[in-house]
């Protein structure tokens, strides 16, 4: 009897260990797949120009006029540089101000969008969360509909409105449409609705007016969601391409995200260093507010709600 129980327990333990091993393997494969591009970019940014050309020359040779010759005719994914060099970084950061200029363009386009979008979304979501009625339901439904549309759909109307306002080819053409995002309103409304009604009533009894309830009770209560929206908006607009290509054609005003796609054609060796530098701000923002980002998305009903 006891032997049978022990054998059954051993079998269950073996199955349990096998399950864990399979899950770990599965998760490991996906982790490697997801991490590989990032690791490749960072490690390759420390390679010399010659080494990068030798590894990836064939990719960039296609379609190039002038019949340039490359050492390698195959793509060779290489993670460890033959010789670590900071030359690419020195070129990007010190010798070619062009890249830093584009980086700065990205900052002055993304920051106003990020801050103003969250400010507008916070006020709108407070309204959606606090007031009821048919008009509110209709408006919120419209917001959801707009959220479901791909951003490319609104590009033409945005261009027409920008043209009409005379702001085409200025930063406002990108910033203004960016301020009013239904996605942020949706996430923050979910979060604002989670602020208990009793807390708002307690604030009213404490003498707070609507603005004080919003700024001193609701906003701090939704800190997690606000931070997660800030990060998501930042990443979204930090990587923007289509909006800029359509609304901001002046290359001097374009951000590094546009420049990155072109840099590959000529300066392939710099591409990895520039991409690595470009990765730093979103990464820092994420690391700074990782906990609140996770909490914010979880309590806001999640991205997939």
């Amino acid at each position, binding site marked *: 009897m006891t032997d049978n129980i022990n054998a059954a327990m051993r079998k269950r333990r073996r199955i349990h260990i096998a399950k864990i091993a399979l899950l770990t393997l599965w998760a490991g494969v996906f982790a490697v797949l997801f991490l590989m591009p990032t690791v490749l970019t960072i490690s390759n940014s420390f390679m010399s120009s010659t080494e990068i050309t030798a590894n990836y020359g064939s990719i960039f040779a296609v379609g190039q006029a002038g019949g340039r010759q490359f050492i390698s005719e195959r793509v060779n994914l290489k993670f460890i540089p033959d010789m670590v060099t900071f030359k690419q970084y020195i070129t990007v950061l010190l010798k070619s101000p062009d890249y830093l200029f584009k980086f700065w363009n990205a900052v002055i386009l993304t920051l106003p969008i990020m801050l103003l979008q969250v400010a507008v979304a916070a006020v709108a979501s407070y309204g959606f969360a606090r007031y009821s009625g048919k008009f509110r339901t209709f408006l919120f439904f419209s917001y959801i509909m707009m959220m479901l549309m791909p951003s490319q759909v609104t590009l033409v109307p945005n261009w027409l409105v920008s043209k009409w306002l005379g702001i085409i080819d200025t930063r406002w053409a990108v910033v203004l449409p960016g301020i009013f995002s239904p996605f942020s309103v949706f996430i923050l409304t979910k979060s604002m609705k989670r602020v208990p009604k009793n*807390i708002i009533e*307690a604030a009213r009894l404490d003498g707070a007016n609507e603005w004080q309830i919003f700024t001193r009770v609701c906003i701090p*209560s939704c800190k997690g969601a606000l931070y997660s929206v800030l990060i998501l908006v930042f990443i979204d607009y930090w990587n923007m391409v289509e909006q800029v290509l359509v609304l901001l054609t002046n290359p001097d005003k374009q951000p590094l995200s546009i420049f990155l796609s072109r840099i590959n054609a000529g300066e392939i060796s710099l591409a990895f260093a520039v991409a690595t530098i470009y990765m730093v701000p979103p990464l820092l923002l994420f690391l700074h507010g990782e906990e609140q980002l996770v909490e914010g998305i979880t309590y806001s009903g999640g991205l997939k709600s």
Partner: protein
Amino acid sequence: MAGIVLENVSKTYPGGGKAVIDFNLEIADKEFVVLVGPSGCGKSTTLRMIAGLEECTSGRIYIGGECMNGVEPKDRDIAMVFQSYALYRHMTVYDNMAFGLKIKKVPKKEIDRRVREIAEILGLTDKLKKKPSAMSGGECQRVALGRALVRQPRVFLFDEPLSNLDAKLRTQMRSEIIRLHENVQTTFVYVTHDQTEAMTMGDRIVVMDHGVIQQAASPREIYDRPANMFTAGFIGTPQINFFKANEIGASGSSDVIVGIRPEDLHLAPCDGAVIGSGNVEFIELLGASMNVHLSMNGHNVIMTCPVDNSIARGNTYEIWAEKGKSRLFDASTGLAIASKTEAEA
């Protein structure tokens, strides 16, 4: 300090549901009034109308002689303690308590003095820097009390403040609130569904059902002379026993209902009369006393008595009712027939 008057107050929700119907009540200055009743009886709605968190559909509410209809909650000079504490989670205990005063732009020194004084009274001095998430339910409720107290309002409103606490804390907080009322000498309106809280705390109890006041009187009066069968059944644990008069050999027809409290029934001869014989179904031992559940002619009868080991399950006993302790009610209206308790069952 202020008294409260509710004059023909009614509340009807947009869907047509009537929460409060023609509510009339005068609460004297410094009085401790408890609104008690089952869930959905309109007691919280009444409290929220006093607070201004809900508008009454008709009628008038006066606080300190001033009509409060249409007046914002912040301008009513009242404080409210909620069941869920309603503390600002992102603020420390100190900031929670100081919030109302900061909004009113009270000088910082005065805020500090008042917060520390109340914290001392409530035993929160060493917890002023903590956030509500790091505190127990009892401590949170004390902070909620403190937040109300520092504002020194004219009226305190309590919306089932002890419902979320365990039995031990509830008893402790109950006595703290009673002591608080004695110290601050302000009008207290307290809502609860727990009749023990109502009986132990209030100067006056207002029993409500279906949005209507069933009886408003002192706890003793409500217990001894309930105005109707609802009040008699709602107040008192275990619940009062109801019998048709003719079933227990009392004077009167089947239209008369006799109510006898469990402690007024005995299984041994006493100064009273036998109302029948009952079979002991089960016994609930409560420590010093016990509840005996009997079956008498198909009726469930509950009696409370000191612990007596001779009473055994399955045995049949004569049930005695104490003289002068029964209450009579009209079976059709449910109203008490006589204000005096009936002498003989």
